[in-house]
């Protein structure tokens, strides 16, 4: 049963983007905080290879009040090479289209962009933020969802001083976002 808790934890931590606090993990797993803490400690030892186990290429670290899986430091150099070789110097077509949507619809939430593009845009938004072309500009009052907007870097790249200088999209499209919900 205890081992099962560790399996649940590693499943969550494997896909969690942000560090996960013990309290929120305990809530999701419906287990006491002390149990979760103990399980995390065992998992850390497991990945570190101090419990008679294999030392993994990844590790579980506490950063900023939460737990997250990171590349083990000794593999940083290798991973840097991978990152360098796999990331293009150009934006992909989906990334450019998503950027265009954000530029004209900002401030806009991820799910609104996703609704317009009809695809999951999580990875693309992560890339655009990483490239410094968009940034978080606030949160939507009702839902608490993050609002995104474009940065000065985009304007510089496009060779304009302000968003007003972007060529307008037709008025039809202005209330288009309302219509999109009906379409799908």
């Amino acid at each position, binding site marked *: 049963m205890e081992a099962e808790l560790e399996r649940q934890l590693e499943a969550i931590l494997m*896909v969690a983007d942000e560090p996960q606090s013990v309290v929120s993990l305990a809530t999701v797993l419906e287990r006491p905080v002390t149990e979760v803490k103990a399980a995390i400690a065992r998992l850390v030892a497991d990945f570190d290879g101090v419990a008679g186990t294999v030392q993994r290429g990844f590790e579980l670290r506490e950063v900023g009040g939460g737990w997250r899986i990171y590349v083990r430091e000794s593999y940083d150099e290798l991973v840097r090479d991978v990152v360098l070789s796999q*990331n293009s110097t150009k934006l992909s077509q989906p990334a450019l289209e998503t950027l*265009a949507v954000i530029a004209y619809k900002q401030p806009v939430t991820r799910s609104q962009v996703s609704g317009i593009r009809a695809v999951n845009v999580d990875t693309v938004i992560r890339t655009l933020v990483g490239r410094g072309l968009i940034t978080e500009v606030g949160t939507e009052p009702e839902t608490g969802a993050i609002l995104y907007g474009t940065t000065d870097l985009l304007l510089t*790249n*496009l060779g304009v001083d302000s968003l007003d200088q972007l060529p307008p*999209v037709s008025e039809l*499209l202005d209330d288009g976002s309302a219509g999109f919900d009906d379409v799908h």
Partner: protein
Amino acid sequence: MERSPSSEDGFRVSLANFDGPFDLLISLISKHEMDITEVSLAAVTSEFITFLRDLDGTAELDAASEFLVVAATLLDMKIVGLLPTGEYADADDVAVLEARDMLFARLLQYRAFKEISVWFSQRIERESARHPRAVRLEDKFRERTPELVWTTSIEDFHTLALYALAPREIPFVGLEHLHAPLVSVREQAAIVISMIRSAPMTFRQIIAGADQRGVIVARFLAILELYRQSAVAFEQIEPLGELTVRWSAETWNDENLVTLGAEYGS
């Protein structure tokens, strides 16, 4: 093969030799238990159009798609009957037989893809519930990503926005062609003749400039009529492949045009 559950309230046909759901008709035809040449396309079509009037949005799109596959093939067969036979009576019979095989082939093919699409749908649905690791890159690695080289002009960016923001249309079976303005087959025949007289053209090229479905249909009928008068010849390398139309009239004067297309009313 599994059938869609629409048989009960789906499209029904009443013909002299058949009465029942369209599904069943297709099943019988594809099992060779009914002679396709016995089926009246006109009757099926008119019933289908009646059926379309009560169609509920996209709900019966499946039935409509299958109907179109069958109808298109039936039409091919009827065309065989329209074409001049001359002394090649046997060839005509062969053509009908071939067209029948073509129908089976197309139906089987269409059915196969329809079944596969169910598999696609189930797999995509199941897979969308899975969670791959895709997390934000740690800052120390992000710094190592190669510098972005920006190559998009503001005009291109604007175009991208227009494209990305354009509402996606829902595919549907349109009925607007039923109300298209009248187009003269004779007039279109004259246009076609002027096009192909000097050099052969593909059917695609011939209809390239047509902005209305009616014009395309009229040019198609015009070509059939010209073939009937032995004024053009066809070349098609593979089924559904490019159809090349070649001017082959030995004697032709514009008087031939006067009678052309008379049975279409213009």
